[in-house]
């Protein structure tokens, strides 16, 4: 081995890098990382919601107690973002690239008949023409260079590993692209017919009137996390004048308020001394057009004046004020920009075809040779031929 290395070090390195064993070690390392990530609560993204971060911190403290700092030092709560995990992915990509080159070379090399390197075994009770017919019937390709016959599954059996390696590389490339240039905004709440420009001018997104679908700028993907009821509120005096509405004491008065009922919502009509409470009806599942409970209080003294449940648009007269409520459902969205989406998808499709094809149609090559008194076999013999090997 050392002699071989000294004679041709690059060849030895190439063979080691493309060996099954190296691939196995890398795959197991990454699998271990992902299994740990699945079992332990992982740290939310650094620029994410502080509430999520606080929730994660309290969860790990409660679950692991005094072991938490040690586990955190070991990086068990940030596995996929760790240097080791990324290094393993990079090494896997390198290994796959070299193996892809080798797969391509093998596909080309095995186009023609090759000389076997293994040991020949005498096969008892085997008639060569019958065996060759049987092998052809099993969709093997048979090449002959009398007296030598080679049976294999070229080109498909060699093509599937090529597809699997190429697909895996594309997949990793797609992940890299999305990691470098992609971004995601979670929990973006929009009300029907609302259009917003995303932070840092990263595009725009607009919800349709019924909050059923969203239009967005190019390259974005919007996923609906939840839908719920929302209301646009206006208060009109008997004189037909719009009254000012306030959501908080320090908020600027406005004549129209749009409220997404993600939770209980309150608003005040100071001129009429009214407080309005809006909540999704607790007896219904929360949907875009589910009923809304409206409670109106006189303030002071905080006495409930009226309570009703509305569905869709409604007008509620209270004393000399008419409350106009227009249904404006909301949707909570996750918006993703992933420039590597198509690369990842194409990689996944190729990987699936390659792996499933390899499982159904694995590489198998064997040679048969007509000898004076018997037939000899070499290579990965079919099980029927394997039973005929003379010991």
């Amino acid at each position, binding site marked *: 081995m050392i002699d071989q290395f000294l004679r041709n070090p690059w060849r030895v390195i190439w063979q080691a890098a493309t060996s099954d064993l190296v691939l196995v070690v890398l795959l197991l390392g990454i699998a271990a990382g992902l299994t740990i990530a*699945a079992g332990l609560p992982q740290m939310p993204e650094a620029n994410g919601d502080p509430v999520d971060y606080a929730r994660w911190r309290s969860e790990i403290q409660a679950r692991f107690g005094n072991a938490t700092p040690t586990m955190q030092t070991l990086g068990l709560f940030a596995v996929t973002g760790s240097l080791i995990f990324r290094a393993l992915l990079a090494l896997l990509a390198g290994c796959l690239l070299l193996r892809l080159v080798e797969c391509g070379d093998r596909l080309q090399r095995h186009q023609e008949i090759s000389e076997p390197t293994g040991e020949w075994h005498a096969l008892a009770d085997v008639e060569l023409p019958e065996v060759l017919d049987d092998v052809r019937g099993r969709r093997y390709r048979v090449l002959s260079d009398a007296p030598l016959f080679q049976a294999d599954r070229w080109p498909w059996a060699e093509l599937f590993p090529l597809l699997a390696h190429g697909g895996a590389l594309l997949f990793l490339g797609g992940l890299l692209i999305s990691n470098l240039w992609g971004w995601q905004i979670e929990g973006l709440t929009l009300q029907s017919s609302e259009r917003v420009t995303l932070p840092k001018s990263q595009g725009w997104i607009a919800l349709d009137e019924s909050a059923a679908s969203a239009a967005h700028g190019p390259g974005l993907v919007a996923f609906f996390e939840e839908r719920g009821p929302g209301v646009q509120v206006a208060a009109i005096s008997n004189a037909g004048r719009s009254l000012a509405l306030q959501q908080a004491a320090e908020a600027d008065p406005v004549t129209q308020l749009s409220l997404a009922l993600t939770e209980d919502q309150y608003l005040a009509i100071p001129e009429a001394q009214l407080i309005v409470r809006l909540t999704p009806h607790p007896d219904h599942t929360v949907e875009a057009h589910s009923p809304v409970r409206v409670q109106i209080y006189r303030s002071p003294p905080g006495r409930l004046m009226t309570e009703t449940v509305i569905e869709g648009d409604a007008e509620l007269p209270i004393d000399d004020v008419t409350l106009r409520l227009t249904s404006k459902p909301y949707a909570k969205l*996750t918006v993703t920009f992933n420039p590597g989406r198509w690369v990842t998808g194409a990689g996944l499709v190729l990987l699936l075809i390659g792996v499933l094809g390899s499982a159904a149609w694995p590489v198998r090559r064997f040679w048969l040779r007509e000898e004076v008194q018997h037939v000899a076999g070499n290579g990965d013999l079919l099980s029927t031929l394997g039973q005929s090997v003379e010991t």
Partner: protein
Amino acid sequence: MPATAVSVFVGLACGALVAGAGLALWYCYRQVPGIPRAVHVIRWVAGALLIVGALEWWRGGHNPSAPVLQLILMATLAAPPGVNGRSLAHRSHVLLILPALVLAGTGLFWISAPVETGTVNGPIAPVGLAVTVCGGLGARAAGLVLSEVATSGPHVEWPSTAAFALLTLIAGSAALVNVWQHGTVWVGTGSESGLAGAWLAWAAAWAGRRQPPWLRAGLTIVAAVSLIVLAAGYPILQNAG
């Protein structure tokens, strides 16, 4: 432990598997004719008892958070003899029964887990069921490689190939759906990472299938354990409550 119909069926199946393993061991020392056939029949009976137990558990509206259904279904797949059963050495049967026995025994233990009040079992979740089937095939593959190493028996590849192919389909289609719907492969759930981890472990076992038998067995067992743990924790019932 409450004497429910489920525990009776699963308990009987465990007993049958223990008896089958005992008979197979006994046959190694005293070759009484008829024992191999009895072991075969016992393994089929255990499989039938387990499937009845699984159906009873599903029908009965038991605690859906306990992994009983997954464990029993995996044991059901691992228990019956395979098409190659007769060609294997008799010692092999002990090792082939072992995964099913461990899974059924663990399921029996979980049956006694406290029942959540007000829970109703919903319909079966297709992905959860497919992952469970993978786990069962993985358990079969683990038993076969164990017997291959211990008895130098023939190498039977179909359970590990089937488990890997099915797992590839599940993980690949889940990732494709995520890419299509969410725009990204990872949505951030633990089950996704677990599925990817189990797939990579099987991919490692698949890549190492030309390695020496002991290494191949080690890789298959690691992959099977990761898959069984994943399947046991994967939700198999849609919540109808």
